[in-house]
Each structure stands twice: as structure tokens, then as C-alpha cells.
């Protein structure tokens, strides 16, 4: 592992426990067009056998922004997230994050670089309680401490405090002792986001955080994501255009494993190709 991490706070939490959710990302100048992008992916290709899921995607994400990836079903959005976060290995291309080449690092190593994600299909520790889920996620950013075979969790106060702070932020404090699998769908989706948050990442990748959520839960999720944007770089896959257009700084539209167009929400809304490919034809995800 390289020792010259440019953002050391991505690897270790800041000492100030009074602001446990702040930190690294605050220092990233929001929208500074001259700063090098936090995430710089070039020519990302992912093939499954003969099927090409990603046919050479370029994506640059500036620090401190909310960057949404939209596109019809099967456009390769989730596969792109999988390659960027290290969930699946990349076939070709390069991925730079905060100045490090992370192209061939596995997901658990990228967490220490400051990358954390949520899953489109809820993926929790279903039989463990909600607090334990968050504690595990918070500890995961310091995995060497997890080899402690002698002491029960709870000695590292900052991890417990972080878990409690996130519980509060998710509005799940009252359910802290409930098994994650017993939560309602909306609560599980929020915990899913909380799991990514617990790593105190510089960039947080949210894969359809509202998927399957009822109308009643949507506002809460929107508020939650908007809150994240204050101190994280957010990458968002989302089908809910209301949320995407409202909170994004940049929107990338994907289609058939490639980037169709990228721009501000206003520009995207008015783009004819996007209308043809996606917005006008959301349900079928039809081809342009």
C-alpha cells in the first residue's frame, strides 16, 4: 500500500469526535473546475464472456459534487458502479481515485482509499442488529483492528459513537437493537445508505437508494441524500428524476454500456438524445 495518501483523513477518522460525520470531504473544494477530479475513470470496459456490459466509459467526478448516473435499464449503470468500487474486476481501462491508481485493487482496499457504496439490492447483515451492522461498517474502514481476537467490540469509542451518530441520522435509533432483516423495506434502504456512510468515505456511491421504496419514504431519502452532499462527494444511480434533477451538479446519461451525454441537470433535461433514449421512454428503457 502506498503511504503518500493525499487525504490521510480518508483512512483514519479525524480526532474531533464532536463532528463525526464531517471530515475529509469538507476539505474538497466544491466545484473547483481546475482541481484534478477526485475520481478519474478512463476507457472502462467490462465484459462478461461475450457480452460487453461496459464498452469504454469515461467518468470524471469533481470532489464535493453530486454526480448522478442515469440511463435506461440495462445501460450498465450498476456494472459501472461495480467496477468503480471494486465489487467486480475490470476488463480494461484505468481508475484513478484521489491520485491513486485503484484499477486493480479489490473493494475492501478501496474502502480505505475513501470509497464506499450502497447496493441496489439490499445487502445487509440480516441476522445482526442494526447497530452491529453499522459498527461493522465503521470498523471495516480500519480492518486491522478487526483482527483483535481478545477484546469485545466497544473499546474503540469513536466507532461506537460513529455508529450511534449514523443511527440518529438515519432515524433508526429506536430500532438499534432490531435485526436488520426485520426492518421495513424503507428502513432497510436507509440502513443501506448508512452502511456506506459508516466508512466515512470521501466518495459515497449510492446505487438506486430509493429502489422499491413507497412514496411515503421518498422524501426522507431525498433529505438524507441531500444531507450527504454537504460533506461528501456523492455518486448516485437513480431512476427518480425528481431527486436526480433536484440535487445533482452533474448528470451522466448512459445507454448500452456507453456514455450518451453529460451535463448539468438543465442541459440534460433539454437534450434531444436524452429525451429519445430515456426520459421520454422511461418504463420500457427503449432504444433510441
Amino acid at each position, binding site marked *: 500500500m502506498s503511504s503518500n495518501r493525499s487525504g490521510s483523513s480518508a483512512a483514519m477518522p479525524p480526532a474531533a469526535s464532536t463532528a463525526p460525520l464531517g471530515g475529509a470531504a469538507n476539505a474538497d473544494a466544491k466545484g473547483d473546475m481546475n482541481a484534478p477530479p477526485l475520481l478519474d475513470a478512463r476507457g472502462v470496459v467490462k465484459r462478461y464472456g461475450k457480452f460487453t456490459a461496459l464498452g469504454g466509459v469515461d467518468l470524471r467526478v469533481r470532489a464535493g459534487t453530486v454526480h448522478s448516473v442515469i440511463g435506461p435499464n440495462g445501460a450498465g449503470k450498476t456494472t459501472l458502479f461495480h467496477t468503480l468500487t471494486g465489487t467486480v474486476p475490470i476488463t480494461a481501462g484505468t481508475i484513478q481515485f484521489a491520485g491513486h491508481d485503484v484499477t486493480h485493487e479489490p473493494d*475492501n482496499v478501496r*474502502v480505505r482509499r475513501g470509497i464506499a457504496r450502497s447496493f441496489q439490492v439490499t445487502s445487509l*447483515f440480516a441476522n445482526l442488529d442494526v447497530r452491529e451492522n453499522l459498527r*461493522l*461498517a465503521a470498523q471495516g*474502514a480500519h480492518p486491522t483492528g478487526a483482527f483483535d481476537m481478545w477484546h*469485545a467490540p466497544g473499546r474503540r469509542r469513536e466507532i461506537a459513537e460513529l455508529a450511534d451518530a449514523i443511527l440518529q441520522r438515519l432515524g433508526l435509533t429506536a430500532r438499534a437493537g432490531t435485526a436488520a432483516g426485520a426492518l421495513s423495506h424503507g428502513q432497510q434502504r436507509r440502513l443501506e445508505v448508512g452502511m456506506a456512510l459508516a466508512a466515512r468515505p470521501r466518495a459515497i456511491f449510492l446505487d438506486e437508494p430509493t429502489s422499491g421504496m413507497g412514496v411515503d419514504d421518498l422524501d426522507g431519502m431525498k433529505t438524507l441524500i441531500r444531507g450527504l452532499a454537504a460533506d461528501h462527494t456523492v455518486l448516485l444511480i437513480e431512476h427518480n428524476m425528481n431527486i436526480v434533477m433536484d440535487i445533482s451538479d452533474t448528470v451522466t446519461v448512459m445507454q448500452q454500456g456507453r456514455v450518451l451525454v453529460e451535463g448539468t441537470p438543465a442541459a440534460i433535461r433539454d437534450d434531444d438524445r436524452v429525451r429519445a433514449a430515456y426520459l421520454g421512454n422511461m418504463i420500457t428503457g427503449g432504444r433510441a
Partner: protein
Amino acid sequence: MNASRRAYPLANLFANPGWWLALAVVLILPLTLNSGTLATEVLVYALAVLGCNLLLGYTGLLSFGQGIFFGMGSYTLGILMTRAGLGLPLSVLLALVAGALTAALVGWFAIRQRGTYFVMLTLAFAQMFYFLAYSLPDWTGGDNGLLNIPRPPLSLFGMTLMPLDSPWRFYTLVAVCFLVVFWLLQRVTASVFGRTLLAIRENETRASAVGYDTRRFKLAAFALSGAVTGLAGAFHALMTGIAPLSNIEYHTSEMILVMTVIGGTGNLFASVLGAAFYVLMSDWLSTLWPRWLLLLGLLLIGVSLFMHKGLWGLLQRGWTALRRGRAAAAAPEGAPEGER
């Protein structure tokens, strides 16, 4: 569960009754059994089952390779004591290390795969080690096994601590080691490490996504499991005076797994229950009916169909029902009903 509870070793003992139950078993066995060897056998297999439970119950790894580590423990101890002339404590310790190293080797390969292929890899290793032992008679005695393993008095640095010439004296040594190992495993399973294993058992993909190198954790679990199982194998060889080929056979792996499942996974005392049940039942039933394994098959079907938590789960359910029954019996006094 109270997550904020601080971990003090002694407080832990009281908070978790497992160790006390294990102590109770250690004390009850001599009072109820005539044979010290049978009692020792219970504890020896309890150790092996604890090792298996660590993998199956806490990490979610179904390993058919436990017999390898058991046999490795037996052979290592046998070779060291009969050929190298090493003392008993050192031989036992090295058998434990041999179990750990073998498990690390097998684990290193096996954890590259998940699910069915993981299981198949452990099976393949089990067969391989069996034939390896079979084809190296100079080392292992081949078909006959290593014979005449002595059981000298326990001594450290030239001081004789305790003779081991009778089965019950040997039982005492095994019982003390068993209780120590149980306590250590209780700490390990409750530790940050143990809780991470549980997370891997629950959802390996997520565990990896939140930052854990799951392979390293699984490898460590394998090594620990192998150490405990190797220790069990060493005691087995000391108990019987031989290190037979059957100790490294596939059948031993299967037996350890069956005991683990019958007792119940994910709880350490359940392993003691499973081993005690299997060893004592087989001892009793085999005198009544040579086809007793058939009954065991039925029991295993019953456990697989109806009681996934094994005997331990059954006891828990019984205990809850009993307490509820008592509460119900006490309730009418407070709420008298009309007499008829």
C-alpha cells in the same frame, strides 16, 4: 444485547453461561460414567467439534477437512513421542501447531472458492491426506497406524506434575485443557474478530464491500479451527496409545461434522452437547444393536428438517417453555378467575 457492556474476563464468564455449563459437564461425566476413557473421548471430540463449529457456525464454512487436522494431530504427537522422544507437553503443543499449519494450507486453497466448490476442495484434500498417510508407512505406520504411543507422567522442566497412568488421571489433564480452550474460544468468538466472522457468515459480499479482506479472516478461522482439532487428535492418540489411519479418514471428518450439526451451530456449548450425545449414544446403542448408525441417520434427518439449532436449540426452547409455564402458573394468583 447490551452493546455498550465492557469486556472484563470474569464478568464475561458470568454473562455467558457457556463456560459454566462446560464445567458442569466436566464434573458430571466422572460422576455418571464408569469408564474414564469414555469420558475422555467425550471431551476429545468436544474439542474437535468446537473447532468445526468455529468454521461452520461462526464463519459459515462447511469443511469436510476436519479429519485431516485431527489425524495430523494424532500423527504428529505419535511421531514426536515414539521417534523423536520428545516430552508430552511439547509434543501436544507441536501437534496443535501442526493442526494449525495444515489447516492454513488446506484453507489457503479452499477459500479461493465459495459454496459447493469450497466444500469439494475440502473433500478433495481429505481424500488426498488420507492416501498420503496410507502411502507413507515409514512415517505413519500405514494401515496399522502408529503403535505404542507412551503416556508418561506429565512433567515440565524435569518436575513431575501428575502421573497419567489411569484413565481418570488422563481425563483430568484433558478436562483442564478442554476448559482452557473453551474459555479462549469464548473470548475469540465474542471479540471484534469473532464478530467479523459472523458478518462474513451473514453476508460475505457486504463484509468485503465495507472493507474486510474476508479471505484473511477465513484463513485465520481455519488456522484456529485446525489448532483446536489438532489438539483433539493429539489427545485421542494419547488416550488410545495409537495413531490409527482411521483418525485421518474421511469418516472422522464426517463424524465431527455430524456432531456439530446435531449439537447446534453458532453456540460453543452446543458443540459439547453434540459430542457428548454422539459419543455416549454410540457407546450405548452399539451394545444393543449393531445397526445403530441407522438411528443416528434418522436423528440427523430430524435435526435437518425440524431443528436447525440442534440439541442446544431444543434445550433453549424447552427452557423458554418451562419459564413461560412457571410464569403462567404464577399469574392466576394475581388475576383470580371465577370459581365454578
